[in-house]
């Protein structure tokens, strides 16, 4: 069973997001990137499946600044292979384009199951996993957990989670693409020393993007803007003691809390 996990860097949402001069995109030079947290969940689930079933795990990513670090980290965590797809990719490449580039790379690999993060904070034109499945003509299921491949039967079973906490057990023929909501355990960490060791001992495999007809997303972003706070919270100022007093007073006033009454 060969598992493939596409990894993508996304803007770190804890940081301030500033816009470019035209206001149509982020100021990408000023951004701090991190691995998409759902991709990290997908990688963790793949690594657990490697441990429990002997599957092979390949991490794959489109070339981007700092992507080598992401791929070496995946190797340090236990991935068997790390593949960098090289080509001239624009920063903030849309998912339609990324899906087609990845599909080209997937066709050159032996892949049974692709585990993608279910979503990313910047997928304006749709989730990568579903678009990748579309480009490959493979079936897909989004918002999944509890992945159980059955290579003898040529299927994978997984839970698709719905609002309200219920879920369906679905069975999908392989090859397939799943959008992972959560791994069965929190993503592991790789020690910096382990990553350094891996960087010395292992190499990233590079494959060039196959030129082909790219159906871009066709969406034109006119502008990005911060939400106008319709009713921003009243912020309680001062030190913690002051904030606590003001909060207690406010809650008492509303009759939500009865403190000292």
């Amino acid at each position, binding site marked *: 069973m060969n598992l493939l996990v596409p990894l993508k860097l996304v803007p770190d*949402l*804890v940081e*301030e*997001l500033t816009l470019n001069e035209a206001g149509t995109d*982020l100021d990408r030079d000023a951004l701090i990137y991190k691995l998409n*947290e759902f991709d990290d*969940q997908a990688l963790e689930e793949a690594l657990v499946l490697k441990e429990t079933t002997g599957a092979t795990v390949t991490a794959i990513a489109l070339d981007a600044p700092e992507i080598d670090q992401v791929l070496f980290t995946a190797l340090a965590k236990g991935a068997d292979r790390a593949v960098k797809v090289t080509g001239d990719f624009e920063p903030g490449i849309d998912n339609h384009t990324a*899906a087609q580039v990845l599909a080209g790379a997937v066709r050159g690999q032996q892949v049974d199951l692709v585990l993608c993060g279910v*979503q990313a*904070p*910047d*997928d304006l*034109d*749709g*989730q990568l996993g*579903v678009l990748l*499945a*579309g480009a490959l003509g493979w*079936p*897909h*299921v*989004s918002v999944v957990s509890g992945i159980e491949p059955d290579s003898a039967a040529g299927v994978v079973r997984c839970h*698709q989670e*719905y*609002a*309200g*906490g*219920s879920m*369906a057990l*679905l*069975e*999908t*023929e392989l090859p*397939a693409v799943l*959008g992972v*909501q*959560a791994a069965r*355990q929190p993503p592991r960490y790789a020690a910096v020393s382990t990553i350094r060791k891996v960087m010395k001992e292992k190499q990233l495999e590079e494959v060039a993007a196959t030129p082909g007809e790219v159906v871009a*997303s*066709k*969406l034109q*972003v*006119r502008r*990005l803007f*911060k*939400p106008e706070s*319709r009713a921003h*919270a009243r*912020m*309680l100022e001062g030190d*913690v*003691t002051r*904030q*606590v007093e003001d*909060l*207690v007073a406010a809650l008492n006033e509303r009759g*939500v*809390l009865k*403190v*000292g009454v």
Partner: protein
Amino acid sequence: MAGIVVIAEALNGTLNEVSLELLSKGRELATSLGQPLIAVLAGEGLDALAPPLQSADRVVLLDDPALGKFTPDAHEQAIAAVIAPMEPRLVMIGNTTAGMDLAAGLAARLHWPLAAYCTGVRMEASDLIGVAQLYGGKLFAEVELGSQSVIISVIPGSFPAVAPGGTGVIERAAVPAGKSRTRFKELIALEAADVDIKKAQALVSVGRGIGGPENLDIVQDLARAIGAEVAASRPVVDSGWLPKARQVGKSGLTVKPKLYFAVGISGAPEHLQGMKDAEFIVAVNTDAAAPIFEVAHLGIVADALEFVPALTERVRAGA
């Protein structure tokens, strides 16, 4: 290129409220374009589910045993076959679990563009403009949707719901005999829990901002002190710190308590969807720009590990 199509959703025999929300916005757009509004519903035994959708001019039912349970493969095949020849100007789909699969899946099958996570859509002269929520709700994108057929997925709660019913024509469309590569096996209900957070008057809800499970104590102490139940955001549940029955948000429960105390929750759109209608929302977070402060009534920028114990102590001390 004509018509506004709403893909309605009825996963377990009940119509999802978002379907009626899409119909209200769909009607507005259809009227301004002078084009028909068409609802499409896929499933099995749909007779009772069609009438609430009749505010649309046409209700097209894909009623077939093969569509009785949701699988992306079968539903996409059937819906694509019926909407492709319509060449609609716009297709609207709720951004639910099924909607995530359908919207991007149909976009890939039909080669129609998709704008995901929309909270708005409007006509400007003859241009169709979408507004999509990005970057965890920190930014919105105003997107030109073009003049070809286009799909948008819409975050539930973005539009008011239309009153169910109307005089639209109900039609049954043929379901093409296709082979689904994905099969439904069983529905697994939420595990019975010791608590029903939907019934709680007050919730202290914890996010990953508290750092780790070792800090849950301080949240549980506060909950006990103010007579609240403990709830959680998705990452906390995914990490196994608290059970799924306590999860608030899109893939968890929707709650409307009198008091919702968000501790270390940044306020991702998926979380806000499950709690924004709480009567009174207090949020504690270290990030002053966290989206949770957009929906909270009272905001406190502080380290939860310092603030929460101080509040608990103050509550216990009384006057």
